[in-house]
């Protein structure tokens, strides 16, 4: 555990990718093999099932620290992380012990069959025998959400370096379902193709946002240009007469997407198609939220199936006739994909697969015009893919770019403010905004990021002087300040007083030029909603 905590510290203390890779390689060089595979499992988001409740952690840490629960709650509000808060309030140990990582994880897993008394005894005993850093890592093991600033790319590179195996192979082996328990890295990585789990998707190739003028990308003719759909990125896999549908978050969603069931008998075995899963009605794409409600539910209802049948807009094929074709060029893969889908469509007119149409342009100016029309297509912008590009792993610069349209925006009035976290704990940085509904202001969005530090301070000082009322950490202020908010999408929401919900709202700028009466109205929001829905 000390070695793993040290790895955590080393990774946490650097922003350099190379140093993170080196730290991981150093760890792998000396780690016990069961610890090593757990380390990789944790870093790639595979954590053991949680066996301790948050309420239990609060109670036990309150007892050990002697602090009242309100003070722990305030501390948590400011730290923003339960595992860290607890590691900071537990009295320092003067009797530190070390245990192997896998032993601790196995012990935590075993706690699921024990009673509260046993759970408490184990956890509080460990708490009293760890250094500060191990304490934090241990709490993270309990609460999950182990991210520690390591991308899959870093894990893959470190494993490639340590085992001297090609990165693409490692990436493929690490994808999909595998267990760390009773397993080792050499076993996992050495599995031959025949022994592979047939459900395994390929790691997704992700595009970087385009930040430079597209002219710098060279000739338009070198690029495949498509619309960027606002759905769920996924892979449809048919192997050995079985169908698997994976989302980009590496969730197996086959059950949720019953529209694709029939593909088992249609797609040839050994096919993997990459595309965007979207709801469609009468030949038109519907906004994202229509599908979102359905994914959240356990069972797909008949009603949902009728209201929002799904299709996949296909833009790539990465396995064909059982062969990994990621090394072919985009242009070649596209030809394969077009050939396959055209044939299938002739035989099965109701096929829930559509070819992603190409946006035909000869100049970058034309491309820009097409981008500006994105919302007409219920799209977020354009995708630019170099015709000669291979299908790579993870997010990479150079060959695939996403060129999104500017966000939607609306002017809202600042109504409530709440303290921020960490170094901003003394500042009011979390805001609630409202629009006019007749003479009344109705809250419609919360946002906290977007202001420059100098503006934050100014707004903070203003809030402290213009507070009407305080309730808990929240202050209500005299409605005066107007801010322009940007967001990525808008949907109806009966839960909110305003009747709408925004996707990814953030502050674009402080409209010091606008008076409070000049802010937008609820009617404006509804208009945006309708425009966006069409």
């Amino acid at each position, binding site marked *: 555990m000390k070695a793993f905590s040290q790895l955590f510290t080393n990774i*946490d*203390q*650097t*922003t350099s990718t190379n140093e993170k890779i080196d730290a991981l390689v150093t760890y792998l060089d000396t780690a016990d093999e069961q610890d090593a595979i757990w380390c990789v499992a944790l870093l790639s988001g595979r954590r053991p099932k949680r066996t301790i409740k948050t309420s239990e952690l609060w109670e036990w840490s309150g007892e050990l*620290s002697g*602090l*009242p629960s*309100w*003070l722990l709650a*305030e*501390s948590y509000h*400011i*730290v*923003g*992380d339960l595992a*860290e*808060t607890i590691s*900071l*309030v537990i009295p*320092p140990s003067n009797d530190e012990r070390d245990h192997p990582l896998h032993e601790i994880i196995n012990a935590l897993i075993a706690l699921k069959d024990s009673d509260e008394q046993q759970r408490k005894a184990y956890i509080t005993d460990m708490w009293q025998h760890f250094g500060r850093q191990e304490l*934090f890592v241990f709490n993270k093991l309990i609460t999950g959400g182990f991210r520690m*600033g390591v991308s899959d790319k870093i894990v893959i590179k470190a494993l490639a370096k340590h085992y001297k195996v090609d990165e693409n192979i490692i990436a493929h082996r690490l994808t999909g379902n595998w267990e760390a328990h009773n397993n080792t890295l050499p076993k996992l990585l050495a599995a031959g193709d025949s022994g592979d789990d047939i459900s395994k998707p390929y790691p997704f190739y992700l595009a970087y946002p385009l930040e430079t003028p597209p002219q710098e990308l060279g000739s338009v003719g070198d690029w495949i240009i498509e619309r960027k759909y606002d759905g769920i990125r996924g892979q449809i896999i048919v192997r050995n007469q079985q169908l698997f549908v994976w989302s980009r978050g590496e969730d197996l969603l086959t059950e949720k997407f019953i529209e694709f069931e029939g593909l088992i008998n249609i797609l040839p075995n050994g096919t993997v198609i990459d595309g965007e899963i979207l709801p469609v009605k009468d030949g038109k794409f519907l906004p994202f939220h229509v599908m979102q409600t359905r994914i959240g539910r356990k069972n797909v209802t008949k009603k949902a199936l009728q209201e929002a049948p799904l299709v996949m807009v296909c833009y790539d094929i990465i396995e064909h006739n059982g062969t990994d074709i990621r090394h072919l060029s985009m242009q070649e893969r596209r030809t394969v994909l077009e050939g396959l889908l055209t044939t299938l469509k002739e035989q099965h007119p109701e096929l829930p697969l559509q070819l992603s149409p190409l946006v035909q342009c000869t100049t970058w100016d034309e491309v820009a015009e097409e981008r500006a029309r994105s919302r007409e297509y219920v799209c977020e912008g354009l995708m630019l893919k170099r015709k000669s590009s291979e299908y790579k792993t993870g997010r990479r610069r150079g060959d695939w770019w996403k060129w999104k349209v500017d966000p939607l925006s609306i002017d809202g009035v600042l109504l409530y403010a709440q303290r921020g*976290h*960490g*170094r901003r*704990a*003394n500042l009011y940085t979390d805001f609630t905004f409202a629009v006019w509904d007749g003479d009344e202001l109705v809250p419609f969005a919360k946002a906290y990021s977007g202001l420059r*530090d*100098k503006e934050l*301070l100014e707004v903070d000082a203003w809030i*402290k002087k213009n507070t009407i009322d305080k309730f808990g950490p929240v202050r209500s202020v005299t409605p005066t300040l107007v801010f322009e908010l940007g967001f990525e999408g808008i949907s109806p929401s009966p839960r909110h007083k305003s009747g709408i919900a925004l996707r990814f709202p953030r502050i674009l700028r402080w409209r010091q030029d606008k008076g409070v009466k000049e802010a937008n109205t609820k009617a404006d929001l509804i208009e945006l909603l309708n425009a966006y829905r069409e």
Partner: protein
Amino acid sequence: MLTFDKCGIYCAQAGIYIDPWKPVDKAIITHAHSDHARWGMKAYVAHRLAVPVMRLRLGADINVQSVEYGEVLNINGVKISLHPAGHIWGSAQVRLEYKGEIWVVSGDYKLQADGITTPFEHVKCHSFITESTFGLPVYKFPTSEEVYADINAWWQKNRDEGKNSVILAYALGKAQRVHAHLNTTIGDIYLHGAVDNINKIYEENIGALPIAKRIDASVNRKDIKGAMIIAPPSAADTPWLRSMQPYKLGICSGWMQLRGTRRRRGADRGFVLSDHADWEQLNTAVRETGAQNVYVTHGYKSIYSRWLETNYGLNATEVDTLYTGEALDDTTDSETAENKPDESI
């Protein structure tokens, strides 16, 4: 005896303010950080070691009376004296006594020994005014020695990798604290102009610091190799800082205790080094005064007041002030005077 008004903390009997934030006739200054020592007072009273810094920052012509720790001023029946606050060199708590009633205004303070500052003195009183910058139980600072050792080890490692080490620390107080404890066998030390200005005053009035060069036009940047460079937080994200490439960036602040803050800052290393009191220090300081009435200023005011009331049964009151505590950003730097052009490199 003391009241809080729109100008600051006021003693009507003596006709004097403590650390006022608006121009007044007479002001006692606890220490020379710019959120406590402000411009525009007709007359100042401050500790001897704070005076030269105030002259540098507020103007050579300010009217200021210099006093020693423990020296008693009698103003209209009020006995006023300064006592070590341990915050930075020349920092003081202000004790006021009138007809047997005693108040202590602590300004900013810490109990932890830092190796260069006169240690905090516990002063008994009836009413105590305390800051609460780190008034949460999650703030438990390591000892200065541990942090100094970490800084030197970090410098050595960077030097081995052919890189400079840049430490961002307040020019007044923290910069001297770090500088005084550097291991000079590792390499050369360079200073940002704003730090060097304050160091000169330190050396004239207190004692020598390890040999260091001011970075000015005469310094060839190519000669700065594997060196330690001390700069104020306002140097972050400036072309000046970028000219120190290749370098690793370290930030010294109590806020570095929290992982989220460390990560958001994008520094290579965060050192938990503060001139303010952590949770235990605050509690010790409050208890040792024996005060029944505690006024809580800048920081986690409401949380800390509630703790004092519910845990120690004290009368705790939140007070709004314009003090900023320990800030991490340029814009909230309580030493904004450093940004004045005449003091830049």
